[in-house]
């Protein structure tokens, strides 16, 4: 299951989707919105996705992970829209026969997702907002 959704993510449902009968190990990564960034309070985040391409890129990542580890099940769900601190932005769950494989595959998927999948977040502070990682360090990035 690959899902890009505006609705809150049901973590248990993602886990259930990834869990296979023959699996002994399930690893789950949950990304949540932090309440601070650059030492400032985060009011909320705006996530947006290029949805068709995001789904295609996640599928490529899953294909590569399935090639490298004996995955028995997997599920990836990413939220878009407005998210407040503590809300869940992403859930990756994989199941495998043994725990090491489940850890390695899950970490590979979230690392690759963050590096390659066309999804963007904007941090909104009291005094401005900023597209995360868009500009090099040192270039003024917060504007009103």
């Amino acid at each position, binding site marked *: 299951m690959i899902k890009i959704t505006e609705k809150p993510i049901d973590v248990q449902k993602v886990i259930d989707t990834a869990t296979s009968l023959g699996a002994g190990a399930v690893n789950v990564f949950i990304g949540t919105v932090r309440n601070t960034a650059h030492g400032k309070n985060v009011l909320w985040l705006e996530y*947006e996705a290029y949805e068709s391409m995001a789904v295609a890129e996640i599928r490529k990542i899953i294909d590569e992970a399935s090639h490298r580890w004996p995955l028995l099940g997997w599920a990836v769900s990413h939220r878009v829209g407005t998210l407040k601190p503590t809300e869940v932005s992403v859930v990756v769950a994989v199941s495998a026969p043994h725990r090491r494989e489940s850890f390695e595959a899950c970490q590979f998927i979230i690392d690759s997702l963050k590096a390659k999948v066309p999804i*963007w977040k904007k941090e909104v502070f009291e005094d401005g907002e900023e597209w995360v990682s868009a500009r090099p360090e040192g270039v003024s990035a917060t504007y009103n």
Partner: protein
Amino acid sequence: MMKTLKIKAFGITRDILGGREVELQLNESGTVGDLRSQLSSTYPEVLQLKSLFIAVNNEYADDHVVLNDTDEIALIPPVSGG
């Protein structure tokens, strides 16, 4: 002959281009690299980005790829999902 391309813009490029989708004119033989040059001269702020990829039909595309007016073209500034 010129061709008219519809360009989807996401994240910070949507702010820079001032819209979710803009139209640009390119020579009939225009490539991804040509589009990149035209964007840089029309919207110099894109030069300040850490990176800018261009996707054609949902795939990251190299600069030498020739664009067609039926292609789905999108600007991909540095991603920050997760």
